[in-house]
């Protein structure tokens, strides 16, 4: 059972419906912005690091150009049908 404080509070609990649209719209914008930052910022920082003479961070690509040679021929150069 609600006490008088809780009763008083429950009188105000009806949220204006347009508020949900405003909040969720802003939440979607921030979330999308967060994803963009997550994707581009590490690359941008790497580029800046290179420009000022540092080393670029390790790239996740393993078989592209510049990847360490663990075998004689990098995988990306094996012609189709050789396996």
């Amino acid at each position, binding site marked *: 059972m609600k006490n008088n404080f*809780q009763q008083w*509070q429950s*009188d*105000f609990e009806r*949220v204006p419906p347009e508020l*949900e649209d405003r*909040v969720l719209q802003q*939440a979607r914008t921030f979330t999308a912005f967060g994803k963009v930052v997550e994707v581009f910022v590490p690359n941008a920082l790497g580029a800046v690091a290179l420009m000022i003479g540092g080393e670029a961070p390790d790239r996740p690509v393993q078989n592209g150009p510049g990847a360490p040679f663990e075998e004689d021929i990098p995988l990306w150069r094996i012609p189709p049908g050789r396996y």
Partner: protein
Amino acid sequence: MTPVVAKKLTDYTDSELIARYLRDQNTMYFTVLYRRYAGKVFAKCISMLADEGQARDATQDIFIKVLLNLAKFTEQSSFSTWVYSITYNYCIDMIRKKKKMPLLFTEDVGKVSNETNEELPDSVLLEMKQERLEKVIDRLPPGDKAILMMKYIDDLQIKEIGDVQGKTESAIKMQIMRAKQRAQLIYEELYGHDPIEQG
């Protein structure tokens, strides 16, 4: 064979929704959290700010703050306590900025005599008629208002209130006592010695 029934989003606990939002960055999980707490947050904002327009803006800002800080939520308290603490602190800051009001607690106002350390029973507040309670609460300094709301609306323990306010348990006990004394004083100013009754 028992059919596999997908769990409805509304059945997820707060922690599950937070974990999924952080993992998938999908706002549908945040939407559920918003719908679960928007009413309470909005009501607290109206009670604290006494203005519907400001309460709307505050609710929006509070939920965005919650969204941006979800990763920092450590589950030391329940999610609701965390959200409400953001709400109270936001509203107190807003009042302080807008009204340039440095007086947050009864101790700052200094109207209640320091000699009276008499602990008033909860019934002093809990048995007031609702419309009278509303008027009394409106006249309290915002810090006192928030602390009484945490105690009587959110049912927070003294320790939890202390965590929210960053104060010790004994300091919180003292503040609650002062806030109750001040509420009684305001009641007497407004209604004389009319008996306090539940309406």
